[in-house]
């Protein structure tokens, strides 16, 4: 598996644990539109990602474009990892 796939799997596991959501979750699903996450737990997801993947996110990172889809959040994590390497 690629790093990105691993990252997405870890994020999915977190979402299921936090929200109890049992339906299908795909990398490009819009989790806000689908009602899986709300504006609070999407920030919680970002805080989890920051700690779990040891990356520093900034307040400017917490925008819909980066958070609504797992693929976008995984890409952000990869970018921050590369910058901080």
């Amino acid at each position: 598996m690629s790093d990105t796939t691993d990252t997405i799997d870890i994020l999915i596991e977190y979402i299921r644990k936090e929200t109890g959501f049992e339906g299908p979750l795909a990398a490009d699903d819009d989790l806000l539109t689908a009602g899986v996450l709300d504006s609070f737990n999407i920030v919680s997801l970002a805080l989890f990602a920051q700690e779990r993947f040891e990356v520093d996110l900034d307040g400017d990172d917490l925008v819909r474009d980066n958070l609504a889809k797992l693929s976008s959040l995984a890409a952000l994590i990869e970018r921050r990892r590369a910058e901080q390497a």
Partner: protein
Amino acid sequence: MPTDNTPGLLTRLAGPFREFGWAAGLAYFIHRVLRKLSPNLGLYVYEFMVQPIGGKPLLPPNLSRNLSFQEILKGDPAIADMPAREDIKARRFEQGARCLGAYRKGQLIGYLWYATGRYEEDEVRCDYVLVDNAASIFDFDLYVLPQYRLGVGFLGVWHGANELLAPQGVRYTFSRLTRFNVASRRAHAHLGWKRVGVGLFLQLWGAEFMASTVAPYLGATFGEHQRITLRLHPDVLMSA
């Protein structure tokens, strides 16, 4: 044709029951019917909540570094921009309420109003008295500007409230939540709040009738000069 509309109508009617549960769904349905009949009729279902102040910061340092917090004073242009009616905002200052603003890079991202000692409800004729007065506030009208709602907005406001109020000895904040505001219930659930009680208020023109799990449990008022007093205590949080 009626048959074509039936599924849509049923879905709309069932919506509140599905979202709020049968009891609150029925209350919501009754409230909507009463409001259709007259603006002087209504059925309000409130939950009285208490939430801890202080403890661990809600945001890590890298997400809070561009945030600042300060009191928004009467006359500040930000007050005029707030969506509440002018007379309501003026009444808030008259009853001694204060407003905390959260700013990111100097821009207002959200605010929170609070009162100390007692809070005069503005929807029904009821006052909330905070029993542990020195360590308690009553918060209301938390607002996050739309562009910050997905980011640090909501947590940022509470982060600032904790930062400013905890050093002043505040340990509890109470609030009144309408049972029908599902989004707010979900958001606050993350902040460790507990329910102090529930209140049901029936407005019938000049009369209001209350039933509550908080003493005095039952009450009625017949005119603007009469108000019910509910005393709120943080017991539920201390025993949690």
